[in-house]
């Protein structure tokens, strides 16, 4: 089956109320409706699914791996951005 006849879709699944949809994988399907059915068949076989999203992979704009130094490396050295310099009073308990 050719790529044009059967484009790629990204599948997101929400396992429980209160949780966000999570990316679980991708699949090929002719159109949105068939993608939803394929997602149901391929990714929800063991239950615990409340909702499925399918998104055409072509609609996803991704960062360029070759730019990862520019994009992400600078944050690695900025430890002050982590909330680790605060004294949390015991009374606050678990945060």
């Amino acid at each position: 089956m050719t790529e044009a006849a059967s484009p790629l879709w990204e599948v997101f699944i929400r396992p429980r109320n209160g949780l966000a949809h999570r990316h679980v994988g991708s699949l090929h399907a002719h159109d949105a409706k068939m993608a939803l059915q394929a997602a149901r068949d391929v990714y929800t076989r063991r239950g615990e699914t409340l909702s499925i999203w399918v998104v055409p992979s072509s609609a996803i704009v991704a960062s360029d791996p070759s730019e990862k130094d520019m994009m992400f490396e600078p944050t690695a050295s900025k430890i002050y951005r982590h909330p680790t310099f605060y004294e949390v009073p015991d009374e606050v308990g678990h945060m």
Partner: protein
Amino acid sequence: MAAMQTFSDPRAAWLERLGDATLVLGHRMSEWLSRAPTLEEDIAMANLSLDLIGQTRAFYTRACEIDSGERDETTLGYRRAEPDYRNPLIVEQPNGNFADTMARHLIFSAYVVPLYERLAGSNDAETAGIGARSAREMAYHLRHAGEWMIRLGDGTAESHEKAQTALDDLWPYAPELFEADDLDRDVTASGFGVDPSSLRDEFDAAVDDVLSRATLKKPAERRGQRGGKSGRHSEHLGHILATMQFLQRAYPEARW
């Protein structure tokens, strides 16, 4: 091998017949594994097959409970001869191409969804539960087969032709599904089962909806092929049973 005597309790015999239909179709669908047109569809076929085998187990198990005899689901599934199986002929027809399989599945699903929905009102609570659960499963089968028939019918000239040919070839097996015999009437009268002749309108509505969107023509109703429900089968069932029963025949009582 001599024909095994069927259940004396009509309720058990009728459930056994429902189980025979889903067992044979479930086996047919399993033949697609590793051969489906795409990986996604391969997994989908496995799901459909397993749904049907699961329904078979439920029907057989309940039949054996009602009969309270020595037989169990394994005996029914693997140790009977061809004439003992009472499935309608359509489910034993070969898979053919993908359109053939989807046309067969559309016809069977459109028949069995209203059947199971009514079975959910059976006077036997256990059977009613099986009906309700199976109706949900088969509603998905109906959608899956329907969506494929729509795309094949309304697809390319080649896919349209294959879908129409598949429908034309399988349509003669449809009337048998809706012909009530004494067993059907017996279990319907007692409030246990469902009269298949009452399902035709719902079947036609579901199929017509798919065919109109698929730009496919509903075949003319001919007298059709029948016999499976009374144990007279096409040449295909023997081959299915040979594959399916080999292990139990070669290694009786095998466990794994």
